[in-house]
């Protein structure tokens, strides 16, 4: 929608937007600038918006104090697998709930949705016992399997189901007349058309896995196996005090993929939310 605003209104609007921007931009700005400040400058009062001295050695120290590259890889491949697995499972489940008539489908969908209401803190102990029994403690399997079959996937299934319900049924009927079976209809017609919803699911899922904190600290015990959120808490001195500048340097590097994903997929993300009728 195009609106014609007077110049005065425009100035007022942009001014208001700039003020509203502060709470969103300031923490990131503070994180990035503090990562190159000596530790004594970080809590200087009044705070410096621009560093007085630059100290880039913090970035090198991140890799010296911990196997950070390995931890980065751990987070990256776990998030990638979780994202791919969730997209596959949720799209198939969402399609089945939207399109295939089977007994008690609505009741089963409700039961599946109930999974969203159970906090992860409630299930973490039983899950620990289960994975302990399966010999999977201090492996990445729990961090891959729990999100794929747990709450993030349930939410993704809901998003996909809403999308497939809105897809014109005539497209599938045309495909049936054209000679396609159920799976091929899903794979060659429904799924390619679900790109906006899949994009939204991919972003949600990737972020959820990338930011996962509770599960790694329960299931993982060796630094080599750590993921990034867990690793960030380990940048401490001999007395347990936080090494702020190094920690913030690590946090800056941790935030880069998230920012990249948002910048690249912003349009897809918004379209996906619009298609699924969900609000951010």
């Amino acid at each position, binding site marked *: 929608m195009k609106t014609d605003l007077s110049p005065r209104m425009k100035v007022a609007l942009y001014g208001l937007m700039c003020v509203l921007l502060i709470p969103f931009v300031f923490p990131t700005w503070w994180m990035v600038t503090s990562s190159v400040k000596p530790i004594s400058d970080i809590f200087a009062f009044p705070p410096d918006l621009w560093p007085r001295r630059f100290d880039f050695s913090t970035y090198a120290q991140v890799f010296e104090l911990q196997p950070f590259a390995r931890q980065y890889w751990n987070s990256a491949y776990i998030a990638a697998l979780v994202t791919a697995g969730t997209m596959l499972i949720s799209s198939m489940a969402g399609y089945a709930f939207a399109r295939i008539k089977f007994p008690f489908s609505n009741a089963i969908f409700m039961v599946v949705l109930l999974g969203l209401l159970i906090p992860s803190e409630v299930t973490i102990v039983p899950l620990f016992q289960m994975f302990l029994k399966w010999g999977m403690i201090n492996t990445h399997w729990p961090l891959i399997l729990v999100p794929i079959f747990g709450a993030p996937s349930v939410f993704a299934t809901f998003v996909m189901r809403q999308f497939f319900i809105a897809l014109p049924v005539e497209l599938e*009927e045309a*495909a049936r*007349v*054209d*000679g396609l079976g159920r799976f091929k209809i899903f794979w060659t017609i429904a799924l390619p058309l679900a790109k906006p919803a899949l994009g939204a699911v991919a972003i949600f899922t990737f972020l959820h896995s990338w930011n996962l904190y509770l599960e790694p600290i329960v299931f993982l015990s060796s630094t080599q196996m750590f993921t990034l959120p867990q690793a960030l808490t380990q940048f401490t001195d001999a007395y347990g005090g936080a090494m702020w500048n190094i920690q913030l340097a690590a946090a800056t590097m941790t935030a880069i993929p998230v920012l990249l994903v948002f910048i690249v997929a912003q349009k897809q993300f918004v379209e996906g939310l619009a298609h699924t009728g969900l609000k951010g």
Partner: protein
Amino acid sequence: MAPVTLKSVRKAYGDAKVLHGVDIAIADGEFIVLVGPSGCGKSTLLRMIAGLEVITDGAVEIGGRVVNDLEPKDRDIAMVFQNYALYPHMTVATNMGFSLEHRGASKAEIAERVKWAAEILGLVPLLDRYPRQLSGGQRQRVAMGRAIVRNPQVFLFDEPLSNLDAKLRVVMRGEIKGLHQRLGVTTVYVTHDQVEAMTMADRIVVMNAGRVEQIGAPLDLYDRPANLFVAGFIGSPAMNLIGGEITEQGFVAAGVTLPLPSGTAARGKATYGIRPEHLILADDGVPATVTLVEPMGSETQVTMTLGEHRIIGVFRERLSARPGEIIHVRPDLAAIHLFDTETGARIG
């Protein structure tokens, strides 16, 4: 090409009966139009021929083979949907060749068939475009191209013109008819528009409330409707239907007596039917009060009150009558229809 036969076809959704036993024999190469008001079951019947709806009872035969339990892909039919159902993520060429691709045709064969269909329908310059880049008429042509490309035995059209504007509808009507004349494939076409039905069909099947009311050539239905429903449905403006009684003096209705053809044997309560264009302006006719005059250019449509009945007349003459004036009209005795008021069946 193949004949299509429907034998006592029934459809029910639980306790709700939608089709109550439909029998239609469609000849090889025939263009049949299923027409009727919304909810009469015509689209359901078409979808049952396509295999998109389960047949509750009865048999559907295509080419002499019962296809009740066959998947749509195995029935050798092609269908054009109301909203075209083109795959949005595929180009025109891919849309058209998609069914052949999934039936194992070679790339060369697909390209050849797509080119053939595109040439017939004037789609060659559009082959690399996506459906969103096409106008309504172009999309409609692509949907037809997708149907003809694999040379099916039967074409099924489900209200394919209802999303187009009036002018384009007339053009596309001609194109579909022309396509049928060129290819000669058995065609079943569903519409609620009786003008489409009249202009396109070899035979029309008039349906109402899940039953076939009459099957026949368009002009047969127009000239000799089998019952009140068909009489009222076929023709625009609709036939004037006046309730009354057949007596020796003529047809006595509320406030007016209308002439009957000599030799009308029936007596008693009946419905008198006369098409608007079969009313003649005549000084010795029955007086009617004009309520509305609509000049159409080639003819004049006049709404009037005859006795206590509101009727419509269509005259070739350019009438200068104004609302409230009296004109005299005489029914063409050779074109009068009489129906049993109770059963609705034609009696004369």
